[in-house]
């Protein structure tokens, strides 16, 4: 290329950069070192605690060395201050109404006894997980990366419930409401809508999590499970399903949990995207559970790095580890795939040779060939959603 051409090209390139909505690379690693609280919530171990009312609890990094997250370490996120205690279980029911031939009132016993039980192993992740990575800071809880977990959910196919009620011709949407209800009158209740054609066999109404009844703070007695989607769609304490002819506007769908509807899903604080869409499907991500930045490691000792990786259901193809800040990468050992929607546990054996700081990085690649970007290359959005940067842990070798 001629020198002059080169200059012309770079002028065009910089003009393109300036005119696009892309911001300078400001995204950092999310918060990483928060301590667990001494206050313990029901059925939980001590977790990172942001709020008691509503409860907002995060799993510390050390909770991500295995494919299944234990129930007592599983993160918690409610929207409303008062969670009903379903002490009188026999009064609880899941109601199905709207555009159906037979409206249903389903007790827990009915769901367990009159429908086929199925199991789905899937990752539940808050759309705002890792939000603390975004700069400028976006509003919302400044989560580290522990607003996620993976469990075996057991319950009933949503399709089977709808088949029993008989969906009338012309119906195309479902309204799903849980008992995450506000205190002040006329504030929005937690609800989501799904298009009927989005409902696969893997979408279930779960009553069990890791072979126990659902923990109270994770949505007892029933929770909607939508593998591959962010957890804002996984309605907790599910109590009502309404079959609709058409989409109905509501706060949690039309205002909250939305990202820019453009190719990079990005915008700047000065120039917000004119069109937005729900966050829906998860992107590929990995996280190191061991070592953590608190771990002291002796030089020349054998270390087994452990972590987890996942995406929205194509499955994990490989996880790569770098010990030189992303210059060279080596394959981690993948454990068995529990399901395409589950955490895929991985491990990587290494021996730090010299004393000092050592940075460990993990990058997952899914079966579609999509891989995690460096955190600095992640574009900003106003809600601080969908962060999936390459994870980085700096340890001290002594």
């Amino acid at each position, binding site marked *: 290329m001629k020198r002059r051409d080169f200059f012309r090209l770079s002028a065009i390139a910089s003009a393109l950069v300036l005119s696009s909505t892309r911001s300078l690379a400001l995204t950092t690693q999310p918060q990483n070192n928060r301590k667990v*609280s001494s206050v313990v919530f*029901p059925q939980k171990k001590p977790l990172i605690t942001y709020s008691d009312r509503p409860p907002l609890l995060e799993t510390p990094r050390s909770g991500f060395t295995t494919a299944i997250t234990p129930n007592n370490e599983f993160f918690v996120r409610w929207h409303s201050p008062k969670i009903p205690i379903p002490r009188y*279980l026999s009064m609880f029911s899941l109601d199905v109404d709207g555009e159906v031939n037979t409206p249903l009132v389903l007790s827990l016993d009915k769901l367990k006894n009159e429908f086929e039980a199925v199991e789905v192993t899937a990752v539940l992740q808050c759309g705002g997980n890792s939000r603390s990575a975004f700069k400028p800071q976006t509003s919302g809880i400044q989560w580290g990366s522990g607003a996620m977990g993976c469990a075996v959910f057991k319950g009933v196919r949503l399709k089977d419930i709808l088949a029993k009620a008989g969906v009338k011709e012309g119906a195309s949407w479902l309204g799903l409401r849980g008992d995450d209800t506000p205190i002040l009158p006329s504030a929005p209740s937690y609800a989501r809508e799904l298009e009927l054609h989005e409902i696969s066999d893997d979408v279930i109404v779960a009553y069990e999590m890791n072979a126990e009844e659902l923990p109270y703070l994770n949505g007892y007695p029933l929770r909607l499970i939508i593998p591959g989607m962010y957890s804002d769609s996984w309605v907790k304490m599910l109590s009502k399903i309404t079959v609709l002819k058409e989409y109905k506007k509501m706060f949690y769908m039309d205002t909250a949990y939305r990202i820019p509807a453009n190719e990079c899903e990005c915008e700047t604080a000065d120039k917000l995207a004119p069109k937005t869409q729900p966050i829906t499907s998860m992107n590929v991500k990995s996280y190191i559970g061991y070592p953590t930045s608190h771990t002291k490691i002796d030089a020349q000792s054998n270390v087994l790095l452990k972590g987890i990786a996942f995406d929205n259901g194509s499955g994990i193809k490989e996880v790569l580890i770098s010990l030189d800040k992303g210059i060279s990468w080596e394959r981690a050992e993948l454990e068995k795939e529990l399901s395409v929607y589950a955490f895929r546990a991985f491990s990587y054996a290494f021996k730090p040779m010299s004393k000092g700081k050592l940075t460990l990085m993990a990058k997952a690649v899914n079966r579609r060939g999509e891989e995690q970007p460096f955190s600095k290359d992640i574009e900003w959005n106003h809600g601080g959603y969908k962060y999936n940067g390459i994870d980085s842990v700096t340890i001290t070798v002594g």
Partner: protein
Amino acid sequence: MKKMMILGLLLSSLLQAGYSQNLKVPSVAFDIKIDKDFGAMQRNCQWCHSFGYILNQGKLSKESWHKIVVKMREVYKAPITKEDEKTTTEYLFKHYGNAKLK
């Protein structure tokens, strides 16, 4: 009357098939700044959430805090007066602001 009471007792024993565990969500004390404007925070915010919810939003610009206050009134129906809208925004920006107006 007696019959009713017996029936009531019977019913409640039947209904108590749910959780036997203690499900009380604990209270956490959050270290929030107290000054002359704190009353406006107590009056308006605690209907729906703890102070932890505020502290863990991180440091925000004045405009961001103002937007949040307005959202609390318009979406979540907190009974925030015009005057308290100003007071709470000032308070939040003073103690939990990032020194930027926008």
